[in-house]
């Protein structure tokens, strides 16, 4: 349902001359219904670009070829909710209100979203900060708030760009657990998650499948499926990253 086929994305230089940056080179990747895919890869290889492509957020200047498939909601809109690598919190909204942006943008009724937002704030360790301005939050708190905002969209397909990069291992593990429990718990076949992460253990814990990309221009160099209890071979994964 979520797919790119032969996707090439190149960025011509902003105004002047010079070489275009080829971010993705004929990338093909599919995420099936109910699947949780983690994307690993060196910095600058095009992971964020891939997620932006699915989110419909490639800049106008980008030269794009290939196919981008995105599931649609019943009203024809994209069924995806994207979480940016930088949090994108609005400085003029307090924490709770920033979270509600997800619900507003996705058309989720306020009556349903608001209690959920309050509950999640507590669950994410942000209790008591409902009325804080973003600039009053720590880096990790901002990131959690951004994830919370994404979840309030209630969209079935999540595109998460390094959602836990600014979290300490403990908080990270707690958030991982939360995501695992909620993320695809109702594997109703409609949901899917594409997660960009730099944490191999996180990928191993969460993903049904792990995709490793090469350096720029990003292509897929390694792909592994979870296998039973000891789901992945950690060392092989790390080695593939090092290639």
């Amino acid at each position, binding site marked *: 349902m979520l797919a790119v086929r032969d996707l090439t994305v190149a960025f011509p230089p902003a105004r002047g001359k010079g070489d275009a940056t080829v971010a993705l080179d004929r990338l093909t990747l599919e995420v099936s219904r109910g699947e949780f895919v983690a994307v690993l890869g060196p910095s600058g290889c095009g992971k964020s670009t891939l997620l932006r492509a699915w989110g419909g*957020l490639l*800049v106008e200047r980008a030269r794009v070829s290939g196919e981008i498939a995105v599931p649609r909601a019943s009203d024809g809109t994209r069924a995806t909710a994207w979480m*940016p690598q930088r949090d994108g919190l*609005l400085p*003029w909204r307090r924490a709770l209100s920033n979270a509600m942006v997800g619900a*507003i943008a*996705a058309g989720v009724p306020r009556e349903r979203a608001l209690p959920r937002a309050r509950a999640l704030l507590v669950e994410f360790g942000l209790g008591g900060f409902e009325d804080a*301005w973003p600039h009053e939050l720590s880096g990790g708190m901002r990131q959690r708030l951004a994830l919370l905002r994404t979840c309030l*969209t209630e969209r079935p397909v999540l595109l998460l760009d390094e959602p836990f990069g600014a979290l300490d291992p403990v908080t990270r593990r707690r958030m991982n657990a939360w995501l695992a429990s909620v993320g695809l718990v109702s594997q109703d076949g409609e949901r899917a998650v594409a997660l960009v992460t730099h944490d191999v253990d996180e990928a191993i814990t969460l993903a049904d499948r792990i995709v490793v990309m090469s350096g720029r221009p990003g292509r897929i160099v390694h792909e592994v499926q979870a296998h039973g209890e000891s789901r992945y071979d950690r060392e092989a994964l790390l080695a593939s990253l090092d290639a």
Partner: protein
Amino acid sequence: MTPRTRAALVGGVTVAVLIAAWEAAVRMGDLPPFVLPAPSHVAATAVGSAPLLGPHVLTTATEAVLGLALGATVGWLLAVLTATIPTTGQVAQPVVLLSQTIPTVVLAPLMILWAGFGLTSKVVLVALTVFFPVLIASSAAIRDVDAEHADMVAGLGGTRRHQLWIVRLPASVPGALAGLRIAATYAVGAAVVSEYLAGASGIGVFIQRSRKAYAVDQIFVGIALIAILTAVLVLAIVALRRALTPWQPAHARL
């Protein structure tokens, strides 16, 4: 002493020093009062003509406030509209430019043909002056909005309308307020000029009559009234800014 009392104090002292310097200049220099009357003289005249002034001030204040409100609203809405539908901006551009370049002395007679002598034509003339800085400053603020924020909304499933309401409009508020701050400074002056052209009451009428009567001291009373009304309007806008941008730290008042 809080920064705000300090600011008020420094401002007050500056005004006092200015007035003292003016008084001294007139007393020591040999400018005839007919060119520049001393502030003490102006103050005395003001006290003398105080009973006259009330209705004039009220008229001008009404025109300025209504015109400011109308102009700011139109300017901001136009900024939003042109941000939403770029073609409207390209269509509006020449009209807006013309509206700012036709001299009031030429526009006023046409305006009065259309809106008569009453309050309306003056409010419209003030609005015409005022909408422009609000439009430009808001447009700039809407345009220069963080792509990051607009993308965030789109990535969450938001439409262009959502981007407008959630990001562009709020992001335009500080810019619009800067425009409004400029506009507020012009509003009273614009009202006065509109009264020069056709008024039966107002500070502009008072000044014009004083000019015709070669009463320079009264002209300066009129100017002082304009300055005071303007200062009040500007302070109101600054208070509005404080109220509308609670996430920003309190800041200087210029």
